């Protein structure tokens, strides 16, 4: 008679106990239930209390106000907007303005930050000192102060629209902002865009093919003449066939301001410059720390292979440094996005200014509006950090770590 090894009795209850209560077992479970109940009760009390107080004081509540007419105008809007649109539209105008500043600010901050870090690490004494001075000055002054400096001291010093700095009668720089010619679509626009699209897709495919050839067969293919042909030649040919894709509408001084053309308002410029230069100082330190965290043997190995300093950095050091850089870099991106709410100080119409500011004081519905605004910032931040997490995960995977 064969004896089967006795199976241990199924310890369902024990497993459940461990899963729910952790090491403390049932006591832990009870504590958790009590904790959750208290938390729910506190949340309920806060909501119920707020609601009761609003009702007794007869303060309007609910989200019905979002459908009402806003009745005020906004200086910069990415979507068509006028005073007769609703508060919902104001919300999106503000949100897009915030996102615009955040995205452009992040791009500039990253580029400036990387350049600064490389300056600081450079063997060139002057570059290294300049980088150090920049970082130490910019990161140690309050951001609001720098914002006001750019807006009130630098940009406001530009001449008025009638004396604006003029380049080819097409670009005008004044204290009303930068006015540039605006492209206006012509019949040739659609074929031009299609050609451009084909060019981009084709170039990407070529690059992919060339990389496979290099990695699989060790074959070096020169693709840049083809890429040039695809990206510039193809659109040029369509332009010859279908005519110009767009004409430029030149700005002209009419009355107080420029009519025609597109305009970049100084509030936007001041905000982007202040946010990106300020955040760049922090990013520079993060990047520097990341690069220094890579063992210097890697650098020496690179140069012993005959790679230039730049190529060693680009191909060997930075990819490894990115592992260290990405998490704190994410923090800086989040900071920049949240700091963009300082826009209210210089009259840039971001979300806080037009929605949590003007809309709030016109409707008086502080609780709803602040809740929406906080939710939006939370969401922007969570999406940003999710993207950065995925990026960090891919880097770690590609490095096999």
């Amino acid at each position, binding site marked *: 008679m064969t004896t089967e090894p006795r199976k241990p009795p199924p310890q369902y209850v024990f497993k459940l106990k461990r899963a729910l209560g952790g090491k403390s077992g049932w006591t832990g479970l009870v504590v958790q239930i009590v904790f959750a109940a208290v938390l729910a009760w506190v949340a309920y009390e806060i909501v119920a209390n707020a609601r009761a107080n609003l009702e007794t004081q007869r303060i309007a509540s609910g989200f019905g106000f979002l459908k009402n007419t806003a009745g005020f105008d906004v200086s910069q809007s990415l979507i068509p907007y006028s005073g007769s649109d609703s508060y919902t539209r104001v919300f999106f105008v503000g949100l897009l303005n915030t996102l615009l500043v955040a995205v452009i600010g992040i791009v500039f901050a990253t580029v400036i930050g990387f350049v600064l870090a490389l300056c600081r690490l450079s063997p060139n004494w002057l570059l290294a000192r300049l980088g150090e001075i920049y970082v130490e000055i910019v990161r140690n002054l309050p951001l609001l102060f720098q914002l006001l400096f750019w807006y009130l001291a630098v940009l406001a010093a530009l001449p008025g629209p009638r004396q604006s700095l003029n380049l080819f009668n097409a670009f005008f720089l004044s204290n009303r902002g930068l006015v540039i010619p605006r492209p206006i679509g012509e019949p040739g626009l659609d074929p031009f865009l299609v050609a451009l699209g084909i060019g981009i897709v084709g170039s990407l495919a070529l690059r992919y093919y060339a990389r496979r050839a290099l990695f699989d067969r060790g074959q070096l293919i020169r693709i840049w003449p083809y890429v040039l042909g695809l990206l510039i030649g193809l659109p040029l040919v369509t332009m010859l066939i279908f005519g110009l894709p767009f004409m430029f509408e030149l700005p002209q001084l009419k009355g107080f301001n420029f009519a025609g053309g597109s305009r970049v308002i100084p509030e936007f410029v001041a905000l982007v410059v202040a946010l990106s230069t300020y955040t760049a100082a922090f990013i520079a330190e993060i990047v520097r720390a990341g690069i220094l965290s890579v063992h210097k043997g890697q650098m020496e190995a690179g140069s012993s292979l005959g790679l230039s300093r730049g190529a060693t950095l680009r191909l060997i050091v930075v990819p490894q440094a990115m592992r260290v850089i990405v998490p704190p870099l994410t923090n800086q991106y989040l900071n920049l996005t949240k700091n963009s709410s300082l826009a209210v100080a210089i009259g840039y119409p971001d979300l806080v200014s037009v929605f949590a500011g003007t809309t709030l004081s016109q409707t*008086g519905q502080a609780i709803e509006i602040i809740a929406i605004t906080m939710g939006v910032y939370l969401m922007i931040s969570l999406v940003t950090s999710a993207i950065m997490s995925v990026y960090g995960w891919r880097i770690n995977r590609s490095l096999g770590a």
Partner: protein
Amino acid sequence: MKRVYLALTLAAATALSVQAASAQTLKTVKDRGMLSCGVSGGLPGFSTPDDKGNWTGIDVDLCRAISAAIFDDPTKVKFVPLSAKDRFTALQSGEIDVLSRNTTWTLSRDTSLGANFTGVTYYDGQGFLVKKALKVNSALELNSASVCVQTGTTTEQNLADYFKGNNMKYEVIAFASADETVKAYETGRCDVFTSDVSQLYAQRLKLANPADHVVLPEVISKEPLGPMVRHGDDQWFDIVKWTLFAMVNAEELGVTQKNVDEMAKSDKPDLKRAFGSDGNLGEQLGLTKDWFSRIIKAEGNYGEMYDRNVGAGSKLQIARGLNQLWNKGGIQYAPPIR
């Protein structure tokens, strides 16, 4: 673990104890020994602190008058400077007892904010301030101008209405505080600064060269400015309302800060009622018999308050206009004290 429970209990207790602070404002103020009054952070003529931190202005004086009526002492006021967009939240949350901050009385503000306007301290209207060098004579010539405005004000909406109504284009740049708005106008970011006319005169004084700027003749809106109190405390509403009425009535009756003691002895029936030697009108308000003389002794009548802050006796030199008494060609009018 115990500490966690304690913290939770505390948090819960706090959440519960945040009860509506609406009723019993008078009692709260008396217990505190101080009136909390929301004012503008710096608007000459209405509320502005001097270099020693003393506040002056019509809005400020009204709060002092309320304090005098309650405590017989006009100094028991804590002034809370508020921006245009924070003011209503401060009142709703109970941080201040009365909002006296050049606020325009509109239907939506009277209904949806959980607060009431108690009267009109100053009848104003919206105008435009431009540089003389632009050679603009009328607001109708402002097509395509850049306009600086303070955000969260009725001004911002009137502006949109006016330019739309007259088929004119404009660019609006909205700032959170009056100072930032004026600064932007001064640096040339905008061609026009728009606000209530009284504010335009007041802010013009702050500019480097006031004579280089001119207020255009158009007044494009009605801006009755007045104090606000929270819904739900009618006694407090009455006190704030009748403090202003007392000052207007005093001017009409010829009672001034100087002659208040003599007038108190008068035999005229309306004066006897006001001064409390006849009837118990002060007690009906929840105040004392001498509430009327307390107010006038401390702050004078409406005309004196006007002259000293924005009128002939001030730097602003704004004519009485609409704010003259009803029987002298204006529209300042108070119900009778009886």
